[in-house]
């Protein structure tokens, strides 16, 4: 043809050659170069790479990032005390050995997940069956995760992957147990409520009783003091009287008697039946009193 045609043709050829021999390996990927269907080389380093053109060599890519495998189904697992738990887990994994991975599994990552999840479930089954609910739930949670991870190590190696993390996501009882948990929770709360009320009532009563006791004590002590004071008063009064009356007991008696009479008979309601004959007072009334003593006394 001509010069330009050669140039163009040459360029086209170069392009064709370049597109069939050069390839880009992304940071997120590893490349596998096949030679007649056989794995020839695994390229871990990202960048622009070279291979032979198609009939001789082909290239395939695998995701090298960390993948997440979430538990696809929730089949209950029995614990040591024969309670069935539903355990949700997740596994973080990554392709480490692409050769092994492809040989075992092909290039499809989903395919591997479909094969891995029953294995993980079985591993959980083994570990959970040995333990109680409390163990799985709290005390040995980390241990369960570690042990499952250890169990998966061999399988992972044969798959050409690395298990980075195994986590228990949820641990729950199956639906029919859940109902009984609710009723138990309700009755527990009721018990707590009753206890709170009773405790409050008891404390209130205690405080009342204590108040009553204090009141009694206070009043009684006051009574005691009062009686003591009164007694002191009485004693002092008695002493005074004794001192004063003691100078002439006979007269004192007479004098006090008269006072007492006055104090005793002072109401109109008091009725005295008198026999004037025996009374000194009526001596004059009877006419036998000659002495003018009575009128003289009346002043």
């Amino acid at each position: 043809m001509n010069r330009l045609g050669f140039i163009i043709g040459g360029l086209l050829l170069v392009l064709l050659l370049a597109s069939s021999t050069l390839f880009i390996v992304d940071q997120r990927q590893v490349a596998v170069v096949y030679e007649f269907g056989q794995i020839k080389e695994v390229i871990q380093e990202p960048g622009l790479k070279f291979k032979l053109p198609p009939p001789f060599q082909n290239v395939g890519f695998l995701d090298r990032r960390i993948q997440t495998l979430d538990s696809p189904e929730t089949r209950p697992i029995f614990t040591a005390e024969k309670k069935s738990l539903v355990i949700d887990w997740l596994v973080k994994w990554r392709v480490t050995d692409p050769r092994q991975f492809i040989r075992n599994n092909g290039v499809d990552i989903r395919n591997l997940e479909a094969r891995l999840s029953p294995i993980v479930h079985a591993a959980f089954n083994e570990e959970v069956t040995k333990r109680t609910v409390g163990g799985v739930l709290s005390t040995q949670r980390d241990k369960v995760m570690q042990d499952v991870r250890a169990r998966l190590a061999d399988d992972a190696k044969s798959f050409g992957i690395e298990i980075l993390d195994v986590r228990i996501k949820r641990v729950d009882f199956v639906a029919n147990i859940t109902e009984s948990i609710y009723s138990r929770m309700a009755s527990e709360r009721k018990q707590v409520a009753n206890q709170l009320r009773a405790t409050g009532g008891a404390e209130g009563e205690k405080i009342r009783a204590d108040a009553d006791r204090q009141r009694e004590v206070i009043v009684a002590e006051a009574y005691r003091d009062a009686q003591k004071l009164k007694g002191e008063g009485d004693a002092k009064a008695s002493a005074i009287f004794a001192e004063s009356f003691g100078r002439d007991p006979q007269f004192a008696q007479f004098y006090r008697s008269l006072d007492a009479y006055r104090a005793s008979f002072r109401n109109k309601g008091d009725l005295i039946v008198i026999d004037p004959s025996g009374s000194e007072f009526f001596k004059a009334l009877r006419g036998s009193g000659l002495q003018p003593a009575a009128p003289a006394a009346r002043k």
Partner: protein
Amino acid sequence: MTLPPSFAAEAAPARPWAALASAARALLAGAWARLPGRRGRDNGAAMAQNGGGGRDGPPDLDELWRDFNKKLTGLFGGKGGPPRRGNGGDPEGGPNFQPSMRSAGVGAALIAGVILLVWLGSGIFVVQEGQQAVVTQFGRYSHTADAGLKWRFPYPFQANETVSVTQLRSKEVGRNAVTQATGLKDSSMLTEDENIIDIRFTVQYRLTDARAFLFENREPEEAVTLAAESAVREIVGKSKIDSVLYEQRDAIASDLVRSIQEQLDRLKTGIVIVNVNVQSVQPPEQVQAAFEDTLKAGQDGDRLKKEGLAYASAEIPKAQGTAARLRQEAEGYKSRIVSEAEGDSERFARQLAEYQKAPQVTRDRLYINAMRDVYSSVTKVMIDSRNGASLLNLPLDRLLQQAAAGPAPSGPAAAPATVEATPASSGTVDVRSREAQRGRDREGR
């Protein structure tokens, strides 16, 4: 923008190569545009018109084709003319082809230069504030660019991906969806004491490392949700329900931050957890009434206690008051009794002094005085015992009644009634009401 030296060396020879490639591409396009025209000439004018319509491609390609035609004229001879012109456009087309090969070359270079510039310009990109761009060279991580106007080598050498770094992102954890196998809501979980509790929270996070975020994990943001779900259940699974609900409520958020961060760091996600907002921690709806009743019970208990305290604080001061009263009264009694005793004894002492001077007279006088006082105020019945006093039948109760009626029936009206009351007896009944009145008169004086 700094480039690694190796890259610069690599890029320099690549540039002319790329220019050549684009020129070739342009040529190819021109050749394609020519094809229908050629067919049109072979099959007739109608088709040529049709073909002409199909030639309405980009003008610069046509131009390019024409330039190349000019160069090829010598080789192809008369036949080398473009079909368009060959079909009757020759008279005008001929002179157009006259310009020299040199000017055509200049034009081609100009066009190639513009294309090169446009191509280089496609490497310019803008990184907004708060974003970072990760530049990859043939898929391999090259560097991370911060905010500003940046340039990278154009396709196919370098590419960039921009991600928001400082912007806060958030994920909500704990939804209402019910899981079939457990009959529990997404937000429900078991506590250590095998109770069920609902927790909802949001996780706020941002990126620290754009490179790790892009290249290490397949779904880094999903990883946040999964880590959060796993973390919250682990924390709650290790706590008792009361501590989750009441005591440790505030600690949960910080525990969550720590646990989620730990998991994410292990996966090198390039994400940092900024905050966890616990929106609600509550018992499931099925048992909420019982929980509320417990709260109420706490208050009831408190109330009962308070009532007790109220009683105590009312009762004790009252008792203290009573006690004080008792003491004061006693004090008063004591003073009174002593004073009375003193007074009485003083009075007695004075009397005694007089009495000792004239015992008999004083004694009689005192006696009579006292008797007078007594008899003057009381109701009295006099009986002469010498006249068969044993037969006396006094209506004592009636007399008492009368006396109790007060001093009203005094005077002559009362006297007969009293006398009539004792007709059966032969004794003398002397009702001393008159004298009583006299006594009162005397007292009145």
